């Protein structure tokens, strides 16, 4: 069935520490985490989600809005999203959001999505590599009162009010058809995210939140002050919107640490417990003796 209308998508993304590439230096001698040693990156599966949203837009037209919640530095992933083709980006940043578990996070994101115009699809990565919980997507869907399609690998067909999606699991696939609007969590095997476009990189490199203006003023002394810079950027849609709790229609008791039912009772840094090991020589005799011992102890044989 041919479609006859554009689709509006929201993509939820997160800036995360690159936990997949931890090196020894990340742990201090005391066994605590040296967070500064971790580079902050665009959560990998969120890039797959953005790619899927962009490809839907290329297919039927429409728009892609990218939302992230985080500290002000998270504006970096929003610029990355602009370089890749996002039409609009919004940073949710407020001390009141800090310390949120998935319940409080999904509530905040839900309230931000409510503030946007109508949408057809919400995309997010299956999970973020810093927590690996995979909970925020389904929880946003529940709070929005829309269906969820987890483990989405491909959008097979879009119709006026339905979408056909292939879901991928370790041990198989499932083809589903779902009424719109709905939320998709996207797996890493879905696609190869496009790199930042060189043209858009030039176009959007000045995109900034207001708190980044002082830094920009140093780079561009031709602007007299933050106000003239702000007017220039806003005129070119290069201002990254920042929404605080006051900008949302929220019950503040549901935000941040206070709005999080889960609490961290304790954190143990993993310390290796060394056991007494027997050194075996890498020689024919050494190995033969080892095998004999294992056979005698019924571990082998």
């Amino acid at each position, binding site marked *: 069935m041919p479609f006859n209308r554009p689709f509006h998508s929201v993509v939820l993304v997160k800036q995360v520490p690159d936990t997949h590439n931890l090196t020894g230096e990340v742990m201090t001698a005391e066994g605590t985490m040296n967070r500064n040693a971790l580079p902050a990156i665009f959560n990998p599966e969120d890039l797959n989600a953005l790619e899927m949203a962009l490809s839907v837009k290329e297919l039927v037209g429409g728009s892609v809005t990218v939302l992230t919640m985080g500290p002000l530095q998270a504006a970096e992933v929003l610029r990355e999203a602009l370089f890749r083709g996002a039409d609009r980006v919004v940073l949710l940043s407020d001390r009141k959001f800090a310390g949120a578990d998935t319940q409080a996070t999904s509530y905040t994101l839900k309230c931000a999505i409510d503030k946007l115009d109508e949408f057809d699809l919400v995309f997010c990565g299956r999970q973020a590599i810093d927590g690996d919980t995979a909970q925020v997507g389904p929880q946003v869907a529940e709070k929005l009162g829309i269906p969820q399609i987890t483990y989405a690998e491909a959008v097979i067909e879009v119709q006026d009010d339905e979408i056909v999606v292939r879901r991928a699991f370790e041990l198989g696939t499932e083809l589903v058809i779902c009424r719109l609007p709905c939320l998709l969590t996207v797996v890493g095997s879905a696609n190869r995210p496009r790199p930042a476009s060189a043209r858009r990189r030039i176009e959007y490199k000045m995109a900034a939140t207001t708190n980044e203006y002082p830094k920009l003023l140093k780079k561009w002394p031709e602007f007299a002050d933050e106000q003239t810079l702000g007017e220039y950027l806003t005129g070119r849609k290069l201002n990254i919107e920042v929404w605080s709790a006051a900008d949302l229609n929220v019950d503040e008791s549901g935000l941040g640490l206070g709005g999080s039912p889960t609490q961290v*009772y304790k954190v143990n840094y993993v310390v290796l417990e060394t056991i007494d090991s027997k*050194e075996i020589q*890498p020689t024919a005799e050494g190995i033969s003796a080892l095998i004999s011992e294992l056979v005698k102890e019924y571990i082998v044989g």
Partner: protein
Amino acid sequence: MTGERNIWVFIEQEEGHIADVSLELLAKGGEIARQLGSEVWAVLCGEQVNELAQRVIWHGADQVLLAEDPQMAVYRTLTYFRVITGLVKQYQPYIFLIGATPIGRDLAPRLASALKVGLTADCTDLQIGDYTSRKENKTYKDLLYQVRPAFGGNIIATIVNPKTRPQMATVREGVMRQNVPDPTRKGRIEKVKTAFEPEDFALRVLSREKREPKVRLKDAPVIVAAGAGVDSLEEFELVRELANALGGEVGASRAAVDAGYISKEHQIGQTGSTVRPRLYIAAGISGAIQHRAGMDQSSKIIAINTDPNAPIFQIAHYKIVGDVAEVLPLLIKSLREKAK
């Protein structure tokens, strides 16, 4: 607070087959229930699954809530969600445990969101204990300690849900042991009514393709696992040969999977399977924490590495400092001789 403090376990079943993790949780649930003086209840949904209810009792359930409906023949988020949220609101369990499988990780967060309760993902251990909130200057008795690795396995976090009930957690497959089924065990089966709203059918499954797992790492008595130190196809063949000679399976660290020697199904560790075989041979595996998290409960560990300071040696029972290309053939040869 309700007086019963029951532990609920979601029984994941597909085509009449119960997921291992659900049985593991029945055993763990039983342990916790004994501590709390309460019961284990199982939530079993599907079409014509009443025969499974008895098995669930043999494995440790005191009561089975049996929701049978043709609309629940195949797992779909919204139909299961509708029925289970209703049951939780009706009976108010103290703890609700769900396997951290693709289905469990789809269902649990949506349930927790609607019930407005805390949920901890991918736990590797559960215990009962007290929690004192310094902010409130108050001690909560007998909470569920939800233990999970975080930050790529570098830290182990213990999470609690002091105020919301049920305390919900998803739990990794393979980290807890099942009970031996006891056919003399008695339990109650309660058939529950199902009722749906039109919006529960917003999603329809058009087709499904399943394939059998090629490897059953979890059940293998012996695993020979390859890491970054195995850096050619020839060396990888040696790993396979040794695994065959031992009647075991081939495992791999993330490095070996990334290098393309073997499929992701064989990966052991934080983002792969959790195993505890009788014998684990780590060939050329340095022993990054993410890997150790998936194998450090093995009964005996043999580690082979050229670096005498490789962290894997700290948990190995047998330490062989040497090149896998030389050591593996010696192991294979020696085994064949002993087998004669």
